[in-house]
């Protein structure tokens, strides 16, 4: 980190927040708020004279609250820049000056109580998001007594207690009596792999090996100590990890397969008694421990929503940022020119984070060195002659790629081709059909519908499938050799958001008995939130069909991910039965109703808005 701080071509902005990001790949305009530090970092030598005289003491966040710090403090010993920060919320010396001791003690005159936040604007070509993660708060698991028993701590708190730079200078003591505990337990998967509504369903990846490391540290520092690990599965994949795990077992650490259901405290000794079902022996056991460590999982950053919105990124169902492609583009974000690294993408250890960061830097440098980029030709175009300047296209665009002037200006919107990702939601929502999406134009999709329904339309299930999930789900069903009816006909669109109302109506008009629209699950949408518009459009379509006397359930909607081959096959089988249940009379009635409606619309179009009578 020191090297980064000293590098002449790296502008390191600490204690800062990104306020806004506009533009597109190669041309991002970024505004950053540099928060007031009240200490000049260029002059501060971190001599600590200011902290010595500061009368305010508050809990030290870095030491997990085990010790205190002053209102003017160094965030942590390795901080870059190595400069103190004055926390104004706790300082006594602000307006009117009541204290001012730190300013008096500072020989370099670094302290400025009137320092203000500064907004800095600059342009960048690419952005790498590496905003990290937070740790799970174990207070939900009341049975472990984290909020009730002093000797129950988290793995983060354990780190501080065992660290030589920690509040106890590396002496591992239990909080209740400051004695070195002899029997220590670790409970794994606190907040991870949980399906009971508390915690998260995913594996946090790093906790198993962190505990193995902690037990080895304990055995190394205190040879007589007895350590027990309560787990559901120990996951020691990775280079050298299994050896480390075996070393821990050889050191005498007991690994008990079972998660405790209850922890009670002996009020006299302050020892903790765990009740656990040992699933290896099938017996209920009780273990008395002097200290308990909860191996807490990791979660996406609690304040990560802001940066996600600024960079128009999407998240997975776990809340981590979704990559462009899990195998082929693991460090690319769906927004062009944005890359991701570290735990912002998923829980991972230092080695994986460094690997991913190196990959992201390499991907970014390829783009920067080239100076130009190629984009997919699947982007939208506006026909200015048809546009009525309503601005709906700009509203629906998940990438803010459409710049629509005020309606009064009567100017057609401009589509930033470099920012357009090609979901087609704008083309589907445009009431004037003024937007065409290259390679997925209305005429092209209409022609596919007509082709599919040219012969025996009443036998076919017409399905619109999005490129990334549902279509891949169909592929998955095929490769897994799952049986589904041969009568289903798939039309691929890049996103279900591209499925225009008129495509569905046209299919029914041509005699389709059933239509299925399928796309990604909301959390998996490859175009941020384009599926939201699919859902809204389907509501409109169902209402329209209802008004026309057409059964709305002939139009179905399913979210099918690329891994849900089984769901794809099941839905197809279920809908095949429904296709057979639609009678030819019903199909003919639908075709007649829609033909009549089409004729009415045509007549309205031909009728001039203002009739002029020549006398």
């Amino acid at each position, binding site marked *: 980190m020191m090297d980064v701080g000293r590098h002449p071509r790296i502008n390191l902005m600490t204690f800062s927040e990104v306020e806004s990001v506009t533009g597109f790949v190669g041309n991002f305009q970024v505004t950053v708020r540099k928060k007031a530090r009240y200490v000049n970092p260029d002059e501060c030598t971190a001599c600590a004279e200011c902290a010595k005289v500061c009368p305010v003491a508050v809990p030290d966040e870095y030491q997990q609250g085990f010790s205190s710090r002053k209102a003017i403090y160094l965030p942590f010993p390795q901080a870059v820049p190595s400069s103190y920060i004055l926390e104004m919320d706790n300082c006594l010396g602000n307006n009117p000056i009541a204290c001012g001791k730190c300013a008096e003690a500072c020989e370099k005159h670094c302290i400025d109580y009137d320092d203000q936040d500064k907004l800095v604007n600059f342009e960048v070509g690419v952005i790498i998001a590496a905003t990290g993660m937070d740790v799970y708060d174990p207070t939900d698991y009341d049975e472990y007594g984290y909020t009730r028993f002093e000797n129950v701590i988290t793995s983060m708190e354990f780190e501080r207690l065992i660290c030589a730079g920690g509040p106890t200078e590396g002496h591992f003591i239990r909080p209740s009596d400051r004695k070195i505990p002899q029997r220590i337990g670790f409970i794994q998967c606190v907040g991870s792999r949980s399906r009971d509504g508390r915690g998260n369903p995913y594996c946090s990846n790093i906790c198993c090996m962190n505990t193995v490391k902690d037990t080895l540290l304990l055995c190394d520092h205190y040879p007589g100590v007895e350590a027990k690990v309560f787990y559901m599965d120990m996951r020691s994949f990775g280079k050298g990890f299994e050896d480390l795990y075996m070393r821990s077992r050889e050191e005498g650490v007991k690994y008990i397969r079972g998660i405790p259901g209850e922890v009670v405290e002996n009020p006299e000794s302050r020892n903790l008694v765990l009740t656990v079902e040992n699933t290896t022996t099938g017996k209920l056991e009780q273990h008395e421990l002097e200290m308990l460590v909860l191996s807490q999982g990791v979660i996406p950053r609690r304040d990560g929503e802001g940066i996600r919105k600024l960079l128009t990124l999407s998240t997975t169902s776990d809340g981590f940022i979704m990559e462009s492609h899990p195998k082929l583009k693991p460090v690319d974000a769906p927004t062009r020119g944005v890359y991701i690294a570290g735990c912002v993408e998923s829980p991972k250890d230092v080695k994986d984070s460094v690997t991913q960061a190196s990959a992201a830097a390499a991907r970014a440098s390829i783009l920067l060195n080239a100076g130009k980029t190629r984009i997919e030709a699947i982007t939208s175009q506006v026909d200015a002659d048809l546009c009525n300047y309503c601005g709906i296209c700009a509203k629906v665009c998940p990438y803010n790629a459409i710049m629509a002037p005020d309606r009064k200006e009567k100017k057609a919107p401009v589509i930033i081709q470099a920012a357009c990702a090609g979901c087609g939601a704008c083309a589907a929502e445009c009431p004037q059909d003024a937007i065409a999406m290259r390679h997925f134009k209305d005429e092209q999709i209409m022609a596919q519908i007509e082709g599919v329904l040219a012969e025996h339309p009443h036998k076919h299930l017409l399905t619109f499938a999005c490129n990334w999930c549902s279509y891949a789900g169909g592929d998955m069903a095929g490769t897994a050799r799952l049986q589904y009816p041969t009568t289903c006909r798939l039309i691929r669109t890049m996103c279900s958001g591209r499925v225009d109302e008129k495509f569905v109506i046209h299919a029914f008009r041509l005699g389709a008995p059933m239509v299925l629209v399928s796309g990604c699950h909301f959390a998996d949408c490859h175009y941020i939130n384009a599926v*939201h518009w699919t859902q809204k459009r*389907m509501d409109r379509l169902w209402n329209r069909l209802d008004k026309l006397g057409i059964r709305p359930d002939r139009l*179905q*909607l399913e*979210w099918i991910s690329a891994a849900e081959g089984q769901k794809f096959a099941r839905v197809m089988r279920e809908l095949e039965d429904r296709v057979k249940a639609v009678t030819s009379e019903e199909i003919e009635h639908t075709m007649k109703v829609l033909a009549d409606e089409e004729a009415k619309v045509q007549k309205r179009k031909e009728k001039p808005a203002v009739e002029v009578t020549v006398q």
Partner: protein
Amino acid sequence: MTAKEVRFKCLMCGHEYTGMYDHDNVTERSCPKCRSNSVRRLPDRKPAEKK
């Protein structure tokens, strides 16, 4: 716009239920009975005005 309570109908199994709906914050719907995503938000029924 805040969320309001609306009626939903599953177009796969016909199950009707009430739930919260926020126009600005659309969430994925699935039928609590059959898990299908073909869940229609039924239009609001306004009471007839007295003349």
